């Protein structure tokens, strides 16, 4: 595995005149996921704006390691960009739990609007203490609930039910307070576990629901919109600081253009996924009354507002915008 030509040692340090600098982007989702498509779009924009001086190389599906590994490689500059799940990053920075405050957004559009808010920008700035430059937030669908028997309209429907969730402080807290038994289970066990009743339901976005075909084994989808599910797009601070101010600006602009396009794509996918699920014959409850979850909602929001002023401000602004 040793003999290789120098030209493929792309990216990291040298970028002589006329040479294309290739940035490494890493994330944990599959290639057809909307985050990956947004990363590709970023590549296009970057090539255009830099007149071909910059290019990207995407490492999807955790090929460069888990998110913990990715953050470390971003710190050292071994990877240039990361599309990190907000779920993981919220275990490292409290303020990011803001996106998981229950029932803050009635739809994906409402969540997307908060991307430009002042508290969201503060979250990105806080990341610099971890050696990261927070560039933007990008979205997948909102979180909904798929259950084996019946809809999830109120905490009563979820009491004592075993629900598969993604490990994040705020999500864990929400599901415990609802009275369900949240289980963090690896994705490849979910299908059979749902089928055989090891779990009663899952907290999921529509995109994953369609690709993983869970609707084959559980028929009741409630569009609860209890949370949204962003990715935090970060850049290695070490790499960012090594660039000229003009190039930093090129990167910021290219990313903004890509994400502006990406959020629209995510919204479009939320609709087409829903249609696909209906076509597959799944039972869908399209709207619930979030006030039935009000007690739980307040408890979680209070708990996390105490942890970070940014979360408090974020909740106020989101509530005000409604």
């Amino acid at each position, binding site marked *: 595995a040793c003999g290789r030509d120098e030209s493929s040692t792309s990216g990291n340090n040298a970028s002589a005149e006329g040479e294309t600098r290739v940035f490494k982007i890493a994330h944990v989702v599959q290639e057809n996921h909307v985050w990956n498509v947004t990363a590709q779009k970023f590549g296009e924009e970057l090539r255009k704006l830099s007149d071909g001086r910059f290019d990207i190389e995407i490492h999807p599906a955790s090929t460069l390691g888990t998110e913990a590994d990715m953050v*470390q490689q971003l710190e050292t500059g071994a990877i240039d960009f990361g599309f990190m799940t907000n779920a993981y990053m919220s275990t490292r920075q409290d303020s990011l739990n803001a996106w998981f405050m229950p029932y803050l957004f009635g739809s994906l559009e409402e969540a997307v609007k908060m991307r430009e808010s002042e508290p969201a920008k503060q979250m990105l700035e806080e990341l610099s203490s971890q050696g990261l430059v927070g560039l933007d937030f990008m979205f997948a669908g909102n979180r909904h609930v798929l259950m084996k028997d019946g809809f999830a309209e109120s905490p009563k429907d979820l009491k004592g039910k075993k629900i598969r969730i993604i490990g994040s402080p705020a999500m864990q807290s929400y599901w415990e307070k609802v009275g369900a038994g949240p289980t963090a289970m690896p994705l490849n066990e979910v299908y059979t576990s749902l089928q055989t009743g090891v779990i009663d339901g899952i907290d999921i976005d529509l995109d994953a629901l369609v690709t993983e075909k869970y609707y084959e084994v559980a028929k009741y989808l409630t569009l609860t919109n209890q949370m949204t599910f962003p990715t935090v797009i970060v850049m290695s601070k070490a790499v960012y600081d090594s660039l000229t101010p003009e190039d930093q600006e090129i990167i910021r602009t290219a990313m903004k253009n890509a994400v502006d396009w990406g959020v629209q794509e995510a919204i479009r996918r939320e609709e087409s996924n829903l249609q696909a699920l209906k076509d597959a014959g799944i039972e869908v409850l399209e709207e619930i009354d979030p006030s039935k979850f009000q007690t739980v909602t307040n408890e979680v929001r209070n708990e996390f507002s105490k942890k970070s002023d940014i979360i408090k401000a974020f909740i106020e602004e989101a509530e005000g915008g409604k």
Partner: protein
Amino acid sequence: MAFAVLLLLGVPIAYVLGITTVVYIFATGNLTLLVTVPQRLYSGMENYGLLAIPLFMLAGELMNFGGITKRLVDFAKKFIGHFRGGLAYVNVAANMMLAAIIGSATAQIAMMSRTMVPEMEKSGYSKSFSTTTTAAAGLLGPIIPPSMLFIIYGVSSGASIADMFKAGVIPGILLGLGFMIIIAFIGFKESFPKEKRASAGEMFRSFLGVLPALAVPLIIIVGILSGAFTATESAAIASFVALLVGLFFYRELKLSQIPKILINTVSTTAVITILIAMANIFGWMLAFERIPQQIAQWMVSISDSTIVFLLLVNIFLLILGMFMDGIAALIILVPIFMPLLPLYNVDPIHFGIIICINLTIGILTPPVGSGLFIASSITRVPIGELVRSLWPFLIASVVVLLMLTYIPSLTLWLPYATK
């Protein structure tokens, strides 16, 4: 280069992977990556699926100490021992039952070489044929579920481990039948001995005796096939039942033996998992340099036919299996092949079975075959002699492999039928 030199110097394979990674990072001058080495070494292990490995190892140890292995062999002997070449069939049948508890070929070969070979020799079979049959039948270990290889494939490819286990059942049975056919041929040619036919009473007593022992494989197979438990859960429950049966039914397991069993389990587990940890940093290095993608592009440029692709994969893996350890090869290859599967329209479960059977055969092919070394070191049959009498079994394995490769329903039918 460094890789080959280190291997030849006899550095343990796990560390060869680690050292190569570090040397390679130094060679590319990308020194910032070194900082991530310990982190990457750690996080590859933080995986729920891997928990099945120590638990199945423990089940195997408990079963051996608890007298379960012995009962299974005795049971098979009472029922099919009276055919010509009877003990050879018993060997295969007992191996099939054991395979439903044990997940690795080397563990199974080690265990059965100690029990079956002396037994066959006593009845007049040659030592080399006895060892050969035992080594070949040991290949069933990682094919019939549970299987360390399937677990590792599932973990690194994202395929469901439960589906992999289901998919292994029919190939395991086919392989077992293949070996029996070979035994029948050789048996008629060399007029093998028969065992005395057991009386109905003896058969019944043996059947009663084996019932608690059979509970262990039954729990695993039924649990997995019905989808009632995950692989990890069935491993946990199998080791628990093996403990109960050994302690309370057969009373051959002593509480004082438990510490030794647990420490053994840690050693045998660590041999595999440290290899996985090191292979993880090696694979990460390959991914960082986009080597999997380059190999994938090269493969696609050769042919776009699925038949040709699978043939090339088989040839490549059989050759690789001659030289390389199965688990290490698996962890390195899975990320390389996965992106190719959708292009050739190959189901990941089907592919998993192909790759795992291939690498299992490698355990018995010279020059590097851990199964050969273990069998030979236990029974003292020279490796050269072993290889000479093994070839009919290896051919049978390759024939089964080709059937599985080109008739996907043999592997895919069961996992889909139980969905």
